[in-house]
């Protein structure tokens, strides 16, 4: 995984895609967001969404899933090259999360992440703060999801 110094504004990663089946949509909704348009096809059709729609938290969580998988794949590749792997810190949060269009049963969403801002931390000089715009695009090429995420990334030579 990269250190702060290895990252540049504008860097973009394609994270892969995920198909939201009716089954996975309902499984998530039963646990976390049991509103009728996330649980039942007919209720979904009658709602503003126009079909059985995934919970927005399901879409965000799947984006996280693909981000983590991408990060772990890069870390493995870096380790295989004999490079030191940077351990990223926890995220302090996110802003501007937009559920732009519904994600309906059967939709395949491709996720990507692009670095938009970088700065060093005043209070913790061993860490940098990276902001990335993470997005999801459906099979028609329509942007359906966007979030401005923040991560603490270790600076090179600043210790573990």
């Amino acid at each position, binding site marked *: 995984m990269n250190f702060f110094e290895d990252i540049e504004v504008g860097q973009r990663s394609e994270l892969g895609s995920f198909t939201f089946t009716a089954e996975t949509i309902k499984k*998530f909704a039963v*646990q*976390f*967001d*049991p*509103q*009728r*348009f996330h649980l039942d096809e007919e*209720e979904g059709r*009658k*709602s*503003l*969404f126009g079909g059985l*729609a995934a*919970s*927005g*938290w399901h879409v*965000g*969580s*799947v984006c*996280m*899933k693909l981000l*983590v998988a991408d990060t*772990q794949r890069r870390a493995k590749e870096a380790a295989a090259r004999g490079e030191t792997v940077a*351990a990223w*810190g*926890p*995220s*302090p*949060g*996110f*802003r*501007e*999360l*937009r*559920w732009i269009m*519904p994600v309906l049963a059967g939709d395949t969403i491709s996720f990507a992440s692009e670095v938009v801002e970088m700065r060093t931390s005043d209070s913790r000089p061993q860490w940098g703060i990276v902001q990335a715009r993470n997005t999801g695009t459906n099979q028609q090429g329509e942007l359906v999801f966007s979030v401005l995420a923040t991560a*603490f990334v270790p600076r090179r030579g600043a210790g573990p």
Partner: protein
Amino acid sequence: MTTLTFEDFPPGRFGTFGPRHVTREEILAFAAEFDPQPMHLDEEAAKKSLLKGLSGSGWHLCSIMMRMMVDGFMGRAASLGSPGVNEVRWLAPLRPGDDLLLDVEVMEARISRSRPETGIVTFKTTARNATGQALCEMVSPIMVGRRGDAGAGQGG
């Protein structure tokens, strides 16, 4: 049960919901499916992380907050969905065994310009553990049907 409409959400404190007990098993299950970072999955690795012990995924905490909102009031509101989340701040780690309370405040309530039959209620929700420590703050708008039009939101 009466359906809560836009008119039922004036700005100000709305209520506190919960408690919701969070088990180690559900933290591990969510992390395995959506956020398999060592700090959410592996006790030993978690001890060495900045969070100093096993913690739940921030996305898990947000999803639990959503569920607490649905159980607390949204499940009987003329909810029409949400366009997004303005801000989420993860302030302290979610720990196995936490009993969460959710403080809900209405920050703003206005009529939608593009859909005048719909209100937009912006909530600030704060999840706290049993010691009162805030773990997560979220500011999010939710579209809610207006009185007299609640039937449309309920699909008939």
